[in-house]
């Protein structure tokens, strides 16, 4: 029983500290700065903003909607 209580309260403390630490780390390392730049990490030169990357197998590439440059201001 003592073991279980120790585990529960122990992990409660460890997780609490971990959460606060993670948040503090995020603030310190600039994760909340330049947030619009962060949203573009999904894209690269080969798969840039404005290009679709998935289609049904029976839809040829040239029939996809035209690429748009909306939001491509980076």
């Amino acid at each position, binding site marked *: *029983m003592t073991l*279980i*209580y120790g*585990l*529960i309260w122990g*992990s409660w403390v460890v*997780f609490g500290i*971990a*959460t606060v630490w993670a*948040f503090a780390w*995020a603030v310190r390392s600039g*994760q*909340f700065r330049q*947030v*619009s*730049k*962060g*949203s*573009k*990490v*999904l*894209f*690269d*030169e*080969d*798969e*840039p*903003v*404005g*290009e*679709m*990357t*998935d*289609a*049904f*197998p*029976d*839809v040829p*590439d040239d*029939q*996809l*909607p035209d*690429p*748009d440059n*909306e*939001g491509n201001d980076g």
Partner: protein
Amino acid sequence: MGDSETDLERDAQSRKAIDASARLPVVFMMASGVFWLLFGTVLAFIASFKLHSPWFLADQAWLTFGRVRPAHLNTMIYGWASMTGIGVLLWLQARLSRVRVPLRKSLIAVGVVWNFAVLAGTVAILAGGSTSVEWLEFPPWVAAILGALFVVVMAASVLTFVRRNVEHVYVSQWYLFGAVFWFPFLYIAGNLVIHGTGASGVAEATANWWYAHNVLGIWFTPIGLAAAYYFIPKVIGRPIHSYYLSLLGFWTLALFYNWAGTHHLIGGPIPLWVQTVGIVASMMMFIPVITVAINHHMTMVGHFDKLEYSPTLRFIVFGAMSYTLVSVQGSLTALRVVNETTHFTHYTIAHAHLGMYAFVTMVLFGSMYYILPRLTGREWSSGPLIRAHFWTTGLGMVLYWVGLTIGGWIQGQMLKNPDIAFIEIVQTTLPYLWSRSFAAALMSVGHFIFAYLVGRMLYEWATDRGKDRLPPMLGGDQ
């Protein structure tokens, strides 16, 4: 933007190398997931049919409702959704960190043992060895194995993160990291407290619903949202509408979701303040839910026509919209005035499936449509079959939810009236239970179509066929 010809080639090559590293562990997890999906589907159909036709398969103890239904729940949760979810998680983390998947052999071993553990747990339930604790029916020794295996998944996540080649931590990674650290704590704490001597009586029920609600809330929801935050922008080729809102959504979910589980016990014999905490937390969940809904919607605005062209986008957008719907419904259901009608009725079953199916399962389908061709180097074999999969599961889910929600509400209203005989209530729900079985049949058809598509792709991969059909989008020749 640099020397674009070489940059282009470099980006494509590095993406291919990362996908190649994910190939064996992720394909194994997803293929296992599909096996459990079919297994759980058969159990689901049997359970559903028994509710209106109790004679159905009634003369075998292991096929009775009390065993088939928990076996369905556990194969879907720990087999289909968890294994496929781990596959999606490993792939997303590698992609977002731009490093190869680490511990590949260990992860495959985890997949193999995980399958045997789920099988052993399911056999135990069907043989009458269920623990009778909802969502934790597997015998404790099976739970111990699953908990231990998860340490490897955690280690792989930490290694991926530490080795990352990208400075910025994308919002999906926050969600995935949350899932990877929250779930083992939840699973181990839940099992220890409930199967140990830590909680008995109403305390056990409280721990039970803290656990059950959080399996959806802090294990499947973060994986589903991480996938939506990756695939919606990635498929349509447009960054998320408000990145700031997405971070706010993550941190508020982390803060509130864990408290909401006790709303399952409203009106029960537990301290009133424990119930009220659950209700307040459920209301606070409006913050992360509305931020996610606004964000996904505003990202999609002007791009809804692309739903016609992309299977991934269809399933993921269906799932993301269902997330909003299920969360709003859940918050409202937590209100005492609503709960006094809906509690102990089919309404709750409809709600649970809106979460685990319309949201989580549909997002997992969408993710697999994107990930598997990139891992196997094979294109899906049939567009019409993918569309059939979407419409059977989508319409089946809508029918399931509408039928049981209405039927459950009527059932709840009748249950509150002491002048109505119980058998009358049972008879009133029959048409709605039939609609549930019909919906289950539709969804089952979709699952078998999907399993065929996945099986065919893996067959072509294993026998080295079908490479010529790979479109340029997936790295094939122009």
